């Protein structure tokens, strides 16, 4: 019996989806005048509703894919989302989460107004305040922090989840001038992204539409949906154009529809990949005509690679060697290598060793992803149709602002500042590492609070703004994240829900749900169909919520003068200016709304003419140029105005109109519209249009005026670096032995970085399923109706040994001593040495009436393990003991 079937058998929620969304069905009399009047009324009412509704194009805000939908608004409420066929990236589909977007808007526990904390952090006690009160609270704290930290802007950090609004939030961060920004990068796809980027310069995407052979290593695309990858892949399996081989530690829905499933021992994907490269090189599978030409044209470092795998360290990575580590038979390794190699040669690179998005699994992830990138390149599958496309998007501007001042007192980001020079992890300077950031801040802030001396370059990070991110529920080491927030003076959470992180906020600012706002347009460089998408507000914001744009603009207006005054004060150089600035001088008092200095007022207050002169000089254009400190200038244009202007400027008036009307633009779309395929009112395919399921794929090809190979970025010369000399020789610390290690130019298996469960332990792996985007919508009634508990997957034989049955409770204790309790789902679909939990459940926010405490919180049980190469999470380096409760 499947775990999922059981999940249907509960009734924790009563009420209909429609009613919950505020739409009641035709109310009928118990004594109808004629038979079937009730049925007739319901049908007529539905038809009328559909005819009279207002339809607005939007794109989804439930995950990072941003698929195109048409929102149906009936009397002010969104009642249905249907896929937008012109938004070709998403192949005219909406997943369970996409459809459940309605429940995000009408969530009973949605944040309704600004709140200020009154209880202890984490306790969940808040009072409702006005927006003005909330802004004023934030202003006071920001001023206090930045004044005490002498204008070190990095004392206030920023964290954001991915989404179309991220530029609006990042603009505020740039305006404040902090170097501390952390997003989901290092809990998500950092290893795969950085490895690919270093080897061939960009990330790209999988061209499944043309792939002939696909090797998926743990990327569960049936449940972790990526558009258009998922949509394209599962229409080609079962001998319909591509062979899909799927390797994983458990049997997932992807395994169910793959052509072949190969179980693997967790933590050993690197060994498999190295053996596949070894077999390729030692059998000369890359010396075929197509590949030889490809490699000589595009790849650097082939000689080194060949030497490494024939006579060097890599020569020992044989299929037999890998077989012992991975538990995959050597013959299978050889066979899939040969199959891949053959398809790649025959179809000129139309094979794909698929790169996962979330790739934060093990300590050796970076090496694994490097090997994978090399493997794809070695078989000529990079920047080729059917392989990895290094696609490009359509030109579009980003909502950003370039005229902010540079703050000289802002210190370097804290997670990088304390690393010894030349030593890894190689942290992305724009996004940092959540765990290293968190651990450093917790450590420094604790010392600082005790009055201890801080290490050189260290400083307390005393405030943090979090937008649409839920680090307490997503970053491994939950308790440390909670403690970190507890050491801060100001935590501001901007979200739609009182989630676990919001429980630690001092101020909560309620954002609108994506259906209620217009976002800055976005260029999707997707595969063969680059397009510009736009989200237009489909309903009015509910309660006292405001779109992020308004929040950022109003907050900027509120704080900008005081923040400018702080910089003014701490950059004042008495020696250079010849006069001391009085201690109580506050420039904010003399700034007009246009950020000019009110000279009259200044002169009235300050009699010392020399000082007045110096103030005007220091604030003047040649020095600080105080007018650039007007943060709200960045928000001059509303997203609506921005979208219109950008489109008109780049693509003309007609294009701007199409984007407004249909939520998407690509060159030639006007012809698709003129062809009469789209219903002008409903904005979906007209009802009598034949062959819609095929048309999805043909529409763009038929009408787009871009050249067909636009998606293949022209590359000059050898853009692929098989051997990475630029990182070779760097030092890092082995996270298990603590010893210093050296990065090599080619990927290396380190036994000392691979651990196995011991003393009755099992390895815990964490992953996705189709119903929740990590911890983003813990209280969504439509999704909880699909799944309201993340049962711990445990091998059925192990369950028997432990004496636990389905739904029995167990306690898991990890090596760092953290414990959780959860109910088990015994199954033969997982290895005996491994257990699995799904992300997104087990929230501890007491303000949730539906999603509270419904399973295991991944952040609580995943150990705080960090990839030593790039600072990403190594979530699956978690070993637990299981005890029956």
């Amino acid at each position, binding site marked *: 019996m499947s775990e*999922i*079937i059981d999940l*249907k058998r*509960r009734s924790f929620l*009563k*009420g*209909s*989806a429609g*009613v919950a969304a505020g739409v009641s069905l035709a109310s*009928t*009399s118990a004594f*109808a005048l004629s*038979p*079937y009047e*009730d*049925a*007739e009324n*319901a*049908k*007529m*009412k*539905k038809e009328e509703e*559909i*005819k009279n509704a207002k339809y607005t194009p939007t794109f989804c805000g439930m995950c990072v894919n941003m698929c195109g939908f048409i929102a149906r608004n009936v009397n002010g409420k969104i*009642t*249905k*989302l*249907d896929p937008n066929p012109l938004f070709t990236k998403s192949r005219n*589909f*909406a*997943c*369970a989460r996409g*459809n459940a977007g*309605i429940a995000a808007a009408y969530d009973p526990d949605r944040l309704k107004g600004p709140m200020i904390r009154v209880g202890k952090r984490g306790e969940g006690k808040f009072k409702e305040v006005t927006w003005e009160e909330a802004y004023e609270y934030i202003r006071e704290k920001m001023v206090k922090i930045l004044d005490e930290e002498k204008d070190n802007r990095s004392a206030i950090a920023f964290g954001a989840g991915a989404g179309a609004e991220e530029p609006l939030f990042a603009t505020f961060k740039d305006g404040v001038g902090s170097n501390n920004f952390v997003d989901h990068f290092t809990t998500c796809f950092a290893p795969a992204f950085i490895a690919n980027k270093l080897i061939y310069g960009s990330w790209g995407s999988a061209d499944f539409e043309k792939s002939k052979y696909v090797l998926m290593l743990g990327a569960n695309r*049936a*449940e972790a949906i990526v558009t258009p990858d998922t949509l394209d892949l599962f*229409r080609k*399996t*079962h*001998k*319909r154009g591509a062979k899909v081989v799927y390797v994983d530690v458990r*049997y997932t*829905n*992807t395994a*169910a*529809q793959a052509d072949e499933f190969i179980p693997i021992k967790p933590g050993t994907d690197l060994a498999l990949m190295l053996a596949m490269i070894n077999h390729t090189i030692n059998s000369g599978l890359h010396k075929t005509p197509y590949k030889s030409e490809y490699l000589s044209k595009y790849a650097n470092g082939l000689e080194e690679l060949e030497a490494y795998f024939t006579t060097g360290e890599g020569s020992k990575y044989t299929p037999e060697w890998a077989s012992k580590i991975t538990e995959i038979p050597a013959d299978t390794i050889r066979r899939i290598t040969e199959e891949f190699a053959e398809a790649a040669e025959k179809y000129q690179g139309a094979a794909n060793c698929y790169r996962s998005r979330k790739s934060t699994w093990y300590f050796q992830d970076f090496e694994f992803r490097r090997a994978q990138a090399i493997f794809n390149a070695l078989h000529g599958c990079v920047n080729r149709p059917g392989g990895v496309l290094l696609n490009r998007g359509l030109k579009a501007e980003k909502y950003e602002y370039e005229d902010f001042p540079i703050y000289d007192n802002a210190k370097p980001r804290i997670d990088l500042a304390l690393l010894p020079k030349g030593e890894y992890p190689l942290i992305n300077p724009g996004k940092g590492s959540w765990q290293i950031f968190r651990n450093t801040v917790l450590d420094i802030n604790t010392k600082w609070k005790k009055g201890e001396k801080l290490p050189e370059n260290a400083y307390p990070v005393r405030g943090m703004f979090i937008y649409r991110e839920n680090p307490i529920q997503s970053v491994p080491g939950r308790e440390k994240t909670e403690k970190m927030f507890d050491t801060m003076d100001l935590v501001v959470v901007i979200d739609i829900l009182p989630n676990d992180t919001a429980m630690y906020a001092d101020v909560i600012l309620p954002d609108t749900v994506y259906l209620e706002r217009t976002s800055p347009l976005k260029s999707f460089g997707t595969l063969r169909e680059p397009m510009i998408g736009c989200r237009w507000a489909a309903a009015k914001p509910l309660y006292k919520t405001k779109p992020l744009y308004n929040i950022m603009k109003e907050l900027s207006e509120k704080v900008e003068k005081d923040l400018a005054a702080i910089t003014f004060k701490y950059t004042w150089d008495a020696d250079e200016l010849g006069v001391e600035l009085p201690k109580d001088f506050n420039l904010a008092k003399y700034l007009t709304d246009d950020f000019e200095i009110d000279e009259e007022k200044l002169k009235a207050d300050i009699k010392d003419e020399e000082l007045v002169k110096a103030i005007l000089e220091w604030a003047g254009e040649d020095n600080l140029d105080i007018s650039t400190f007007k943060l709200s200038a960045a928000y001059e244009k509303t997203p609506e105005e921005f979208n219109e202007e950008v489109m008109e400027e780049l693509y003309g008036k007609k294009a701007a109109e199409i984007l407004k009307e249909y939520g998407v633009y690509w060159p030639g779309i006007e012809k698709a519209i003129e062809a009469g395929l789209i219903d002008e009112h409903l904005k979906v395919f007209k*009802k*009598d*249009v034949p*062959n*819609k399921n095929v048309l*999805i794929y043909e529409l763009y090809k038929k009408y787009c005026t871009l050249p067909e190979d636009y998606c293949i970025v022209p590359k000059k010369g050898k853009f692929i670096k098989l051997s990475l000399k630029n990182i070779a020789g760097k030092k890092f610390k082995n996270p298990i032995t603590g010893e210093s290690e050296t990065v090599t130019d080619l990927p290396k298996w380190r036994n000392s970085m691979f651990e196995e469960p011991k003393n009755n332990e099992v390895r815990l792996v964490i992953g996705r399923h*189709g*119903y929740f985007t990590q911890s983003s919508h813990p209280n969504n*009634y*439509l*999704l909880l109706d699909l799944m309201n508990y993340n049962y711990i997957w445990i091998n059925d034989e192990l369950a028997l040994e432990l004496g636990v049955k389905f739904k029995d409770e167990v306690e898991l204790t990890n090596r760092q001593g953290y414990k959780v309790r959860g109910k088990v789902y015994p199954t*033969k*679909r997982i*290895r005996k040495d491994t257990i699995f939990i799904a992300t997104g459940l087990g929230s501890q926010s007491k303000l949730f009436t539906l999603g509270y405490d419904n399973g295991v919180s991944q952040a609580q049980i995943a150990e705080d393990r960090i990839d030593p190469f790039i600072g990403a999470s190594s979530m699956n380096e978690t070993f637990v003991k299981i005890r029956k409760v």
Partner: protein
Amino acid sequence: MANYAIALEYQNCIDCRACEVACKDENGVMLGADKQRIWVGIVEGGETLADVFLNFYPSQCNHCIDAPCVTVCPTGASHFAEGGIVKVDYDMCIICKGCMEACPYEARFVDETRHAVDKCTFCDGRIQEYGTTACSATCPTKVRTFGDLEDEDSDIVKLLKEREFFVLKENEGTLPKLFYLAPEDVEFRKRTLGEGITLHKWDEFKPKYEAAAQAKKPEWKKA
């Protein structure tokens, strides 16, 4: 007059349950019920991780031409609507649950918010405007093709002419209208078809369905 049906490319199904949520949105289906108007049937087989398999059978009401749920209903609440859609008039339903017993597909359940038995309606009221059900429209991998069996040019008839198919519990004799398209991959076909499933071709199947539908049409109501 149309005779609506759905063909299912079930080998595309990834059990993502987008159809279930789209259905709930469009039709206001009760949450928290044991059953839904639409579901994915799951069959698990194999003994070890190396040979385990899951088969997915996306399903819903079959809108049988000779629907036993309609025959058995004592008040006439269960009825055939235009297009051969099997529906329940909620006002007329007394929740005797006879239909739930009679249905071979377990497609019916009690909706406590409606105080009546509920089931899939092929999105009656929506299809008139969109031409497709909510479940077909939303599907990521386009499992479902909704259409009119009497329209030779419809996508569904074209598909049925092209491909072999089977129906569930054919021997019940209810003439169900969910047509499962047989995969061409022999191994996958073997794994998912199981014992005793007969494959059909439309030309051979059509006369029987057409005649039965014609005979039933006088019973079809407006809604």
